[in-house]
């Protein structure tokens, strides 16, 4: 058999035409596929995304400032936060007392690591003793909050606007800021702010840092914040107390934040 004969034999095998429904099937399948591209993408990448999220979370728990927008952290301060229940207190301090406590403190309800950037506090990490899940949730919140705040400062505010913005301190966490006035005014005055009805009540030393002690009324005078700010630490508040005014006119401490460790970076 020569090549031509073989070719002729092979050519006897015909194929049937594809059915008319094939195009309709493809058209329907294409339409269905195009309606769920996002879902398909999610299915494809969900495990990779879950693993990446786990890695990020683990890194954050080990090094809370790993993904911070801020790269130049000059110092960090570890602080303890305590809350006071009136009925359990034997005695209370007055706003005029710079020490502010003459009773045994309760265990801290929060531990915070933070620093000051341009006169305003930036929380790097926080935890709640004996509350692992709440600590993790809080850390995740802090990550997003810090990223949003850092993004705003870096990309939305120019240096003049940032200097003119208000400095804040967080006596009891990120949800309860105290405003201390313009940052530039605070820094240039050696932390002697006069924002609102604030007034300087004296000077002190906390953790070997000279501090300016300022009192600032809040909530129509029903609360009094006392803030111990260190000029050498960009007016970081090494100590903050918040007192509530009682019906008999006396003051009782509700919140106390006390620095326990200052770490200067690069030393």
């Amino acid at each position, binding site marked *: 058999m020569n090549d031509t004969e*073989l070719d002729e034999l092979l050519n006897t095998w015909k194929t049937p035409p594809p059915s008319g429904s094939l195009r309709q*099937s493809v058209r329907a399948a294409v339409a269905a596929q195009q309606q769920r591209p996002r879902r398909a993408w999610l299915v494809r990448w969900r495990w990779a995304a879950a693993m990446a999220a786990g890695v990020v979370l683990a890194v954050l728990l080990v090094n809370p400032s790993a993904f911070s927008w801020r790269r130049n952290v000059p110092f960090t301060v570890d602080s303890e936060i305590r809350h006071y229940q009136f009925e359990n207190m034997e005695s209370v301090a007055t706003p005029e007392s710079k020490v502010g406590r003459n009773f045994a403190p309760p265990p801290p309800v929060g531990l915070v690591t933070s620093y000051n950037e341009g006169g305003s506090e930036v929380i790097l990490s926080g935890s709640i003793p004996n509350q692992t899940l709440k600590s993790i949730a809080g850390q995740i919140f802090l990550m997003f909050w810090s990223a949003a705040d850092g993004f705003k400062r870096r990309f939305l505010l120019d240096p003049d606007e940032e200097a003119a913005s208000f400095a804040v301190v967080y006596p009891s966490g990120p949800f309860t800021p105290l405003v201390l006035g313009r940052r530039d005014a605070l820094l240039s005055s050696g932390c002697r702010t006069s924002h609102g009805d604030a007034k300087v009540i004296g000077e002190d030393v906390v953790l070997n840092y000279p501090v300016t002690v300022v009192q600032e009324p809040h909530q129509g005078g029903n609360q009094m914040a006392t803030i111990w700010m260190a000029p050498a630490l960009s007016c970081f508040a090494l100590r903050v107390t918040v007192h509530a005014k009682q019906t008999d006119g006396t003051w009782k401490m509700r919140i106390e934040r006390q620095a326990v460790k200052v770490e200067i970076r690069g030393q």
Partner: protein
Amino acid sequence: MDVLELFDEHHGALFRFAYRLTGSAADAEDIVQTCFLELLRPGCSYDPKRAPVRTWLFGVVRNQALKRFRQKPASDTLDIPGGANGPSPEQQVLRSEIEEVVRRAVLTLPEVQREVLILAHYEQMPLTEIASILDIEIGAVKSRLQRARVSLRETLAAYAPNVEQNHE
């Protein structure tokens, strides 16, 4: 890239290729449909810089067909096609018989020879394009095609006169 336009342009050749690889019209249609859906899949492997879309489509059909063929040998699922137009009932019977013999002969070729033969003989594809679809050297294409034809010549030797008679 409009999938339906590509379908209109290529589905006939792809269907013939799939049909001759699997021996089943139903399987061939499934394969062709899967082939075009593959184009829409997120992370689709088609890269226009590497090969024309036709080459890629034939490659997908080939892989799908071989996968099915390994699960269900084509000789178990041979479809009986409709008769050719024109010939007399006797010729139809004879032609149908020859066609069946040819089909079985092609489908019983080793996979590597069968796919080369189908692309070269039935689809009249250049050897370079076959090499690209199968991801092999042109020399391998030639040798596989040669072996396939030698094998078919032996298998179909007895039917050559019938073809001549049928054509006369």
